């Protein structure tokens, strides 16, 4: 290959090649051969505008002005010429000359002639290039690609040459193999490049290249998994970019018959091609998604598409496939699906809320068909749904606003007397609010809003689906507990544990209690009651029943029940007594490692701390039990129990009798005169008859905070009505005192420590046995004889030798 040619090809032009007289250039045989073989490549040489080059390079030193002028004229000439000749001349990047070491000035100019010019697709690009003199991004990318291709072409030449040379050798078979391998690699490369090329084209001008979509789809049918994955991902990128912001409706036959302008035809063609390609792509994705190899990639594509263009055609297909994968055993896939659905729920504006309904419906069906044996994540997504209570209430709200404004005005009038400064302020405020109203009104008019009625309808359906699912799960759990005694324990539980959906279901119920219809609450409470007490019923059976609910789950049931009641303002006449009984017993069944302490702390907070009116008997029972509890468990549990205990004592003055050892304490003790520590019903425990002796031991607790807490509690006064309530909640206490939070920094105070234990030295040697002098002497003698013997032996040996 010619040396000079290669140098000239470099795009930011370097200095010109050194001025070598033509005679001095030596051509190697190889070069000659190459040129002969590839005459096409060298064709440009014959067409070089030598005159121009000489003018450029060989000329004398010119002033800057001259230079400019010349450039301009040259540019003009080139613009005219360029169509005819494939030679390109890039403008000098730097107009200013460069001074060489020897003092001569060089102008950076470059004539660009390369094989690029011969590529057929280049013409358009070159035009742009010459017009703008700079490369825009996409072109640069394209060019990089092309140069890569070239490099490959060159690379290809070598093996071919080798093969030609050695064709007759016996290693032909091996070579053929090598060739095959190489070609496979090449094919992979070309396909990759092709994909990239098509993709960039599509992105740069979708309308013109819409047909390339089909080509890309063709590539995705490749056998190579890598290629397929790549093609899927690049198609994803393309579609994400070119899908319009509206749904495409294909023209009806009637419309097709009508005569339309060229523009419309073009658009119609574009849209139909896009839609067909999209459809084919989706089909492909949905088929591939079922194959394990492509599962992740395909799911990623589907999720991204659903997230990005939820308004577009065929979204239902996307949605159903996402929901199908929502409980996938593959962690990555599951995460993707869940987050997609969550974003669907939280960005309802993108699809007008329709997809929410569909998604919830699909999930509900999914849960039903899998008999509630799914991964908890699949239900957790419901937590992201937002239920807007104000739909359709806007008008009434506005009215309210006005009313209040009137009120304000009235107040204003009353206050007018108070001085003019005030008035000025008020008027300013009024003006501001007026402007704000106007802006709001304008905004409302502009934004697209679906019909309130429609939305309300959708929301109702969503709600009913969600609750349907929740109730199904509850019922399923109940059922499984009920049958557990007879059914074999090894029945299909899947990989998700025994009641995988119960926990998120309870969480969801707790969150959406306000939306719950009052009619259902009765049933719900019944369910919860049964679930909460489930294990105590079947506990008697000796068979170990792992299907039972765990302590955490039962605590959660109690919690939900309380939350439901609380959010409905205790409007219902439901007896919560059973739940208290459950909690009273559950406290004893708690195990630190196994059960979640956070749930326990939360239930202490909700059920005991927040409850205003408590039966004295019950409160006392809980106080006693919590104190006992605090004696047996770690700091975090103890602290949350003590905090609850303190709050209970502050609320119930009479319970403070527990703090005093009254000789005649029976006065308040009620019907049961003796405390029953193992009672299961708080009302029957007779706790009022006892004294909180636990505090005495707790003040000796190794944790300073617990010990001070116990001390403060024991010093609470019976007579005084302390209304002050501590701000710390049991949950907070639990979190603060858990070991994970512990800083483990010993307070490094400088403390004086006295060394009291200076024992006398005589004492020290006591435990050391006396040294037997005779033995020592014997050993010494022995040693000496041994060593002496050795020595003599050596000496004798030395002499012998």
């Amino acid at each position, binding site marked *: 290959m010619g040396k000079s040619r290669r140098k000239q090809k470099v795009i930011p032009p370097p200095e010109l090649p050194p001025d070598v007289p033509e005679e001095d250039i030596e051509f190697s045989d190889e070069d000659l051969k190459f040129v002969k073989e590839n005459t096409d490549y060298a064709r440009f040489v014959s067409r070089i505008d030598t005159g121009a080059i000489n003018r450029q390079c060989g000329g004398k030193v010119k002033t800057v002005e001259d230079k400019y002028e010349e450039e301009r004229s040259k540019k003009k000439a080139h613009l005219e010429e360029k169509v005819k000749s494939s030679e390109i001349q890039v403008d000098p990047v730097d107009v200013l000359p460069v001074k060489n070491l020897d003092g001569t000035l060089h102008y950076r100019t470059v004539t660009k002639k390369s094989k690029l010019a011969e590529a057929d697709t280049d013409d358009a690009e070159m035009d742009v290039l010459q017009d703008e003199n700079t490369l825009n991004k996409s072109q640069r990318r394209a060019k990089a690609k092309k140069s890569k291709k070239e490099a490959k072409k060159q690379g290809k030449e070598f093996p071919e040459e080798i093969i030609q040379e050695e064709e007759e050798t016996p290693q032909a078979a091996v070579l053929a193999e090598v060739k095959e391998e190489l070609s496979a690699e090449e094919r992979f490369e070309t396909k990759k490049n092709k994909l990239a090329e098509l993709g960039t084209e599509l992105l740069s001008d979708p309308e013109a290249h819409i047909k390339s979509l089909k080509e890309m789809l063709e590539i995705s049918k490749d056998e190579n998994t890598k290629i397929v994955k790549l093609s899927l991902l690049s198609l994803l990128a393309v579609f994400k970019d070119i899908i319009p912001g509206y749904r495409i409706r294909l023209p009806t036959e009637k419309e097709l018959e009508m005569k339309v302008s060229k523009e419309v035809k073009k658009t119609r063609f574009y849209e139909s091609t896009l839609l067909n390609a999209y459809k084919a792509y989706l089909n492909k994705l949905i088929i591939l998604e079922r194959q394990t190899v492509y599962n992740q990639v395909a799911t990623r594509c589907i999720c991204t598409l659903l997230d990005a263009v939820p308004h577009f055609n065929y979204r239902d297909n996307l949605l159903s496939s996402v929901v199908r994968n929502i409980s996938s055993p593959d962690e990555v896939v599951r995460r993707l699906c869940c987050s997609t659905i969550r974003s669907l729920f939280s960005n309802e504006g993108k699809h007008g809320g329709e997809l929410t309904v569909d998604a919830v419906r699909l999930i509900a069906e999914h849960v039903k068909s899998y008999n509630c044996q799914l991964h908890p994540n699949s239900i957790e997504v419901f937590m992201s749904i937002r239920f807007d209570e104000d739909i359709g209430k806007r008008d009434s709200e506005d009215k309210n606003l006005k009313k209040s404004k009137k009120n304000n005005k009235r107040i204003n009038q009353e206050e007018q007397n108070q001085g003019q400064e005030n008035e000025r302020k008020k008027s300013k405020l009024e003006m501001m609010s007026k402007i704000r109203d106007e802006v709001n009104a304008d905004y409302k008019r502009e934004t697209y809003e679906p019909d309130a009625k429609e939305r309300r309808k959708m929301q109702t359906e969503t709600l009913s689906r969600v609750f349907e699912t929740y109730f199904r799960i509850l019922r399923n759990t109940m059922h499984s507990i009920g049958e557990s005694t007879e059914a074999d324990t090894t029945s299909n539980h899947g990989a998700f544990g025994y009641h995988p959906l119960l926990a998120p279901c309870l969480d969801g119920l707790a969150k959406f209690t306000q939306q719950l219809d009052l009619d259902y609450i009765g049933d719900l409470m019944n369910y919860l009651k049964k679930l909460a007490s489930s294990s105590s019923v079947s506990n008697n059976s*000796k068979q170990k029943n792992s299907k039972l609910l765990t302590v955490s789950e039962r605590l959660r049931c109690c919690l939900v029940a309380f939350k439901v009641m609380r959010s409905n303002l205790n409007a219902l006449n439901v007896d919560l007594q059973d739940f208290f009984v459950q909690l009273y017993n559950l406290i004893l069944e708690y*195990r*630190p*490692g196994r059960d979640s302490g956070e749930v326990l702390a939360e239930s202490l907070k909700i059920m005991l701390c927040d409850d205003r009116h408590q039966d004295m008997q019950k409160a006392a029972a809980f106080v006693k039990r919590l*104190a*006992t*509890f605090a*004696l*047996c*468990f*770690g*700091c975090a549990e103890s602290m949350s129990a003590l905090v609850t205990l303190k709050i209970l004592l502050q609320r119930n003055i009479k319970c403070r009798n527990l*703090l*005093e*050892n009254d000789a005649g304490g029976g006065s308040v003790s009620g019907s049961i005169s003796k405390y029953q*520590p193992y009672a299961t019903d708080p009302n029957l425990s007779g706790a009022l008859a006892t*004294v909180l*002796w*636990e505090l*005495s*031991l*707790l003040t*000796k*607790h*190794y944790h*300073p905070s617990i010990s001070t807490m116990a*001390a403060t509690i*024991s*010093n609470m006064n019976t007579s005084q009505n302390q209304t002050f309530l501590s701000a710390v909640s049991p949950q907070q206490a639990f979190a603060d005192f858990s*070991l994970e939070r*512990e800083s*483990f920094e*010993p*307070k*490094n*105070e400088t*403390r004086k*420590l*006295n*060394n*009291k*234990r200076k024992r006398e030295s005589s004492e020290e040697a006591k435990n*050391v046995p006396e*040294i037997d*002098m005779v033995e*020592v*002497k014997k*050993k*010494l003698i*022995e*040693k*000496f*004889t041994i*060593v*002496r013997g*050795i*020595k003599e032996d*050596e*000496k004798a040996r*030395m002499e012998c030798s």
Partner: protein
Amino acid sequence: MGKLGKKARKFGKKNLQSVEKRNRKQKPFLKRKFAKRDGQREGKNVEEKKKIEPPHKKRCIEENPWDIFIDAVFSKDKNEALDYGDSDSDGYLAEDSDLTIAVVKGTEGKISDNKMSMQSKESLSELKKQRRKLAKLNEKLVDEGGSDIMKRKVLSGSVLSSCCDLVDEEQSVQALTSLLNWYRAACHYGQEPSGITKPDIYYDIEDSETFANVMIFVLQKADQTCRNMLGISGTSNKEKILKLKNNPKWDSVQPLIKSFLRSTMHLVQHGADLEIIVFALSQLRVSIVFFAAFPDLLKKLIKISIHLWVTGEETLSQQTFLILKEISMVFNSECFDTCLINMYKAYLHECDIPKEYSEQHVLFLRYSLVELCSRDMQKSYTKASVSITQLAKLLKMALTTKNKEAVEKIHSGQYTNCVDLWVNFIAANVQDCDLQPLLYTLVQVISGVAKLFIGPRYLLLRIKCIQWLNQLSRTSGIFIPVASLVLDMLEYNTTNEGEKQRMKLEAVSTVKLPKNWLKSQNFQERCIFSVIELLAGHFAQWSFHISFPELATIPVMRLKKFIERSTMEGLKRVVKRFIDQVELNIEFVQRMRDDAAFSPNDQQSAETFLQLEKRSTNAPYTQYYQSIVEKALGTKKKK
């Protein structure tokens, strides 16, 4: 390393910080080399685990758990503490004519010392072989040198006795000098090429009786004689010795003392027989005060002693510990830290090496370390605090990140033994000093460890944790709730009735139990017995406390449930008996409590409640607890 090297080092430490830094970096390699040889000495290929890199003061959470070293916390302080100089002379004392000047024979000293250090690193089993080789070499050299130049001084029994008399009666310096020279020869007997290095005089000993006598006499009397010469009587401290330098007699006696100390140390280092070393050490202990004048020798002594303390047998270990204790008491200001730190490190290093029957030895090491710590609370308090913080850091990392390496490091022998050490330290001293902050952190660390390792496979670790907590609680009188930790072990019963096997109770030194162990009947028994034992210990402490009934409520309930559930009759009976005892005690306390006239907030009255009964040992629960303890000891012995 020569004298120049030492000076240069000193200079560098003062003026060239970067050199110092580099030195510190290189130290691990040196150390490692040394430790490896040690390992060979043990005849085992011990995995090298010593980390020397000094920890930085502030560490962030993300750091690598391998960076938190339990054993190297103090390395920054005194790493070079034991680089003792070998440059001092160790030659014979000049006699007669130039008695007053102790001729420094540098070359000789160097050679002999080099050999010494060489030998010290060889394995004990090979020592004799080496010695033989050396002797061979000596013979050759002697032959070459020619015997006519040599002036042989042979010590015979009669000479010895007359010398001894002179020393005894007249405190003759000359006689002592020659005795010491012979003593030196005796100490180096068979090891030193005495022929070539000092050709003019060659000390020899006639027979074994004399050999033994000179050794014993010098060891027993040298110290006292020197004292008499210097005019010190009774106890003397370090300052007194240092003051002696101004004493005119000092110049004459100093070389004698030095020779005596050196020779004895050589004997300790190379003496083959345990009894001889022990005897030499016991005599050396008396003269420790004299080391004040020879700091280099002192460092060397510390090093030797620590090595013997860690590796030696029972009596030897005890003797060396006495030496170390003496040193740290006499030279409190300079050497206490050095001793403590090096002993601490050696202890942890020893814990890492799994050895058969090492339990007793580790126990002794721990006790002696605790005893040493108790000597200077102020200093050991800071050490303990640093070490415990390090433990806590590692634990916190393991708890928050569940980092596998950190977790592994925690259930290593090093970690548990370190915790054990500080538990014992606190238990020993909590009565006298205010160790509340240390105690609190340590309790948190232990509960963290118990929380980190859940599950039956870590049964032994959990038992250990609870034992620590019980010990701390018992000694400090504070309340540490262990009930929930103990009761968790009840749930470890995973076996059904069918699979009952007997597994051999062996190889339980590993922290993690093998899986097949879990199904064995022994495991079940071990679980239940441990529960009873630990709970009984916990209850015994509070059995006369006014809150006892409440304390026992939940555990008793849990145990009752276990009885309902369990199918093993033998275990059920044991548990039943325990419950009965506890309930009896509950009733007793409740009865007494009903008569009490004070309220829970009256701490003082609560303290005195039932104290009288507590002292008498014939309360039923106390007796029951005693029987349990004895039984536990019995089963342990059986093993």
